[in-house]
């Protein structure tokens, strides 16, 4: 059983996954941020690998990625930073990024290095289902990594079921068809999540996009196994350069 599956075995509601950008706010903040997230109650960490053209992210996360790139963050640097992280961090860690830097690094080499340092899963939003099935899925499985697909309110039931079959770890439900950080009416989101809940899927479901505080976390977690927070946490890091304090205050406000 993977570290991600282990989490859901012990906790099937209010699971909190927090996104952070590798190399942000400073090149060497990656581990400090991850430690702070673990210490303050994050159940999983989604670690973003910065990219010049992050189509599925909103402006806040893109800006943090631009800073990380300026700081000198690369995939090779990231694996160096993560070399010994399992000595101090035991929550599951998922790498999130885009195909181009991963292809350039070498897809198999990337999976091998990720698994070797102790990463648990991958989110690559622009890796399509067809290419996953024909080319990349086997490589990901070979290294024992979970692969998390996204579903949206526009995804048909039939397709949700296909994607559920292909995914492992959990399903990432986009709470509205929007890039991260957008605010939308949460009533519609709840209906959509109820719909997903009724499908009785194989994987747990975490809700992402637009979750920023105690109230939105609670609404999202009501009809799913938990939620993912991204832009709101990056904003908190933008507003307070003390990573420990910013993380503590932010997560206490969400979970408190």
């Amino acid at each position: 059983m993977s570290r991600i599956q282990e989490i859901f075995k012990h906790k099937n509601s209010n699971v909190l996954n927090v996104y952070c950008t590798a190399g942000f706010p400073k090149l060497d903040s990656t581990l400090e941020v991850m430690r702070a997230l673990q210490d303050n109650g994050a159940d999983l960490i989604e670690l973003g690998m910065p990219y010049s053209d992050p189509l599925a992210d909103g402006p806040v996360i893109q800006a943090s990625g631009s800073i990380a790139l300026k700081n000198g963050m690369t995939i090779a640097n990231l694996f160096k930073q993560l070399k010994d992280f399992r000595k101090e961090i035991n929550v599951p860690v998922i790498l999130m990024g885009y195909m181009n830097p991963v292809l350039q690094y070498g897809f198999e080499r990337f999976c091998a290095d990720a698994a070797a340092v102790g990463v648990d899963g991958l989110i690559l939003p622009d890796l399509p289902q067809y290419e996953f099935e024909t080319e990349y899925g086997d490589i990901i499985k070979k290294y024992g990594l979970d692969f998390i697909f996204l579903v949206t309110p526009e995804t048909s039931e039939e397709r949700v079921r296909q994607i559920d079959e292909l995914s492992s770890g959990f399903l990432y439900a986009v709470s509205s068809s929007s890039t991260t950080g957008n605010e939308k009416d949460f009533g519609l989101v709840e209906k959509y999540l109820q719909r997903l809940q009724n499908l009785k899927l194989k994987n747990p479901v975490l809700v992402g996009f637009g979750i920023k505080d105690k109230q939105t976390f609670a609404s999202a977690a009501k009809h799913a196994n938990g939620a993912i927070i991204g832009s709101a946490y990056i904003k908190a890091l933008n507003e307070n350069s003390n990573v420990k304090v910013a993380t503590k205050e932010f997560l206490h406000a969400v979970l408190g």
Partner: protein
Amino acid sequence: MAIQSYQKPDDKGYYGKFGGAYIPEMLHRNVEELVSKYMDIIYSASFQKEYNNLLKDYVGRPSPLFLAERLSKQFNTTIYLKREDLNHTGAHKINNAIGQVLLAQRLGKKRIIAETGAGQHGVATATVCALMGLECIVYMGAVDIERQAPNVARMKMLGAKVIAATSGSQTLKDATNEAIRDWINNPTDTHYVIGSVVGPHPYPDMVARFQSIISEEIRWQLKEKTGSELPTHVIACVGGGSNAAGAFYHFLDEPSVKLVAVEAAGLGVDSGMSAATTKLGSIGVLHGSKSIVMQTEDGQVVEPHSISAGLDYPGIGPLHAHLFDSGRGIFLSATDEESVQAAFNLTKQEGIIPALESSHALAGLHQLNLTDKDVVVLCLSGRGDKDMSTYMKYVDAE
């Protein structure tokens, strides 16, 4: 004997190893809708009738095929210019904008978005939206808005909303990112009119089909003038590659016709200020398809440079990547300086002021060993009105 066709991608959108649809799930439904419907819609009788009528009476097609006698004499060969510069709005971009907006109407979309670099595709899309009474939003890099003011003014007068892309390098690639994000955020009522043969399947194929009118006309026009439908060379500039795709399309499977693509070398291929993607790029994924991409060794997409905003793009359409990779296409590059010289030369020889983009194709003539037996068709993709301030800087410098 089975003959491989270069025209059509496979059913997943691959030309050889390039293409596909590398898109996040949020775009899946819209892209899938296009994949399942575009062929039926664009080859329906009602679509063809409306499209062809607009190309004729609104755009002014067929665009002339002009024998450039004095230019031919300079190169000791026969050169015909395909006059896309004479189209309404001044470039080939309108062929695709009309096609896609008609398609969007038939898909029930009420809102049109587009990206633009130099502004030609933005102007073409804003024009068609004005004609059809549709809402139009154009994303344009903040840097490009500064340097292409006349086209920004045209779009505004045409009723389009021009939104500055302020992320990243604030040019065409970032405008494309912003347009894709808009489409993600507006999944039901919006159609994204991509201006080049780039993007996820089916865009490269769809845009190539809408631009293929260029080579369809060249064939019969050349037959009228020379008795043969086939030239020895077709030359076009390539940024993303839409005018080249259109000019090559009906010659792709005619092996005797040499297809010559001219990329923008900027200040020189090795200067660090270039947009010659096939010379400097490697396989990558950009804006939804696998192609050749200019990038760092870490896979970050780099900002190219060209004097021509329309060629200032760090990728190339997957069709062209395949033509390059397979050897079917001949890929040349021309510098800023060579292209400006070629523009002044054409103006002096033929009384035609070309767009900076098309001037790259003209500059490519010097790199081919043409003879009096050759018949060359050069796609003059756009007119130079928008580039007058750049040209005048050269005049003032002399």
